[in-house]
């Protein structure tokens, strides 16, 4: 197919969709639509993970981001009853300035990274590093301490969320 392999086609389509949906997240006025477009972006990124042989990560990404975090966002938006009418808008000039700043940042990043080596990712072969067994080995041998610290982080987040979110205790 036009000299491209199926992997390259999939990469192109997924990248295009991811960027389009990400742009829609920023440019739609209705916050609920923003959340839904972000979910679609996350699905595209999960597709990228599959292409990169990170199968477990793709599943976890959908479960955690699309399944839990975005649902929480949707909850908060419905809790505050936000919709298009109540959506605050920046002035046009600050939007233009933001776009220019973003464009310049992109220009700098592309300019800085363009010269790096053209390394090809091996899509076939050595492809079992993304499986759960392998990840578990690395997690419990090389990253044991960060793993324990992560529980402290989650505990702190839990306590903080309850402290802030709970109404006054009677």
């Amino acid at each position: 197919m036009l000299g491209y392999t199926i992997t390259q086609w999939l990469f192109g389509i997924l990248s295009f969709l991811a960027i389009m949906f990400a742009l829609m997240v920023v440019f739609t006025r209705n916050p609920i639509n923003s959340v839904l477009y972000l979910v679609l972006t996350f699905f595209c990124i999960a597709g990228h993970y599959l292409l990169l042989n990170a199968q477990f990560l793709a599943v976890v990404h959908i479960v955690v981001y699309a399944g839990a975090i975005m649902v929480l966002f949707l909850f908060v938006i419905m809790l505050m009853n936000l919709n298009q009418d109540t959506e605050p808008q920046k002035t046009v000039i600050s939007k233009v300035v933001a776009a220019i700043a973003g464009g310049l940042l992109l220009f700098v990043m592309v300019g800085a990274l363009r010269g790096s080596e053209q390394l090809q990712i091996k899509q076939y072969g050595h492809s079992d590093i993304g499986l759960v067994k392998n990840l578990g080995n690395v997690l419990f041998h090389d990253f044991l301490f960060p793993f324990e610290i992560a529980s402290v982080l989650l505990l702190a987040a839990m306590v903080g969320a309850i402290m802030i979110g709970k109404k006054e205790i009677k």
Partner: protein
Amino acid sequence: MNATNTPMDYLPIVMMFLVAFGFVATTMFLTHKLGPKRKTKIKLESFECGIHSEGNARLPFSVKYFLVAILFVLFDVEVIFMYPWAVNFKDLGLPGIIEVFSFIILLLVGFYYLLAKKALRWED
């Protein structure tokens, strides 16, 4: 586990998604095309027995749901650390059990805290 894993192995899943999505899209398109349309004002309103409908369909709802959702997210993230342990359970042996239980005990402290604060109580 010894079989080669390439992204192409997931092509059937992609196909399934495409077929599922395509089926829904086709059915919706066809029903919109085939069905007759009478767009009068009364038809477009939501049905409310005799009374005119008012306001937005989305009502703000209670904060009580919100804490449950937050706690769900935090306990959900826990799972991504548990799966690798469960799969490697035999290789890691006793040290693995100790490591994971010290992880879980810290989270159980948080669970105890939220029970003590009555964060999951529905009535207040």
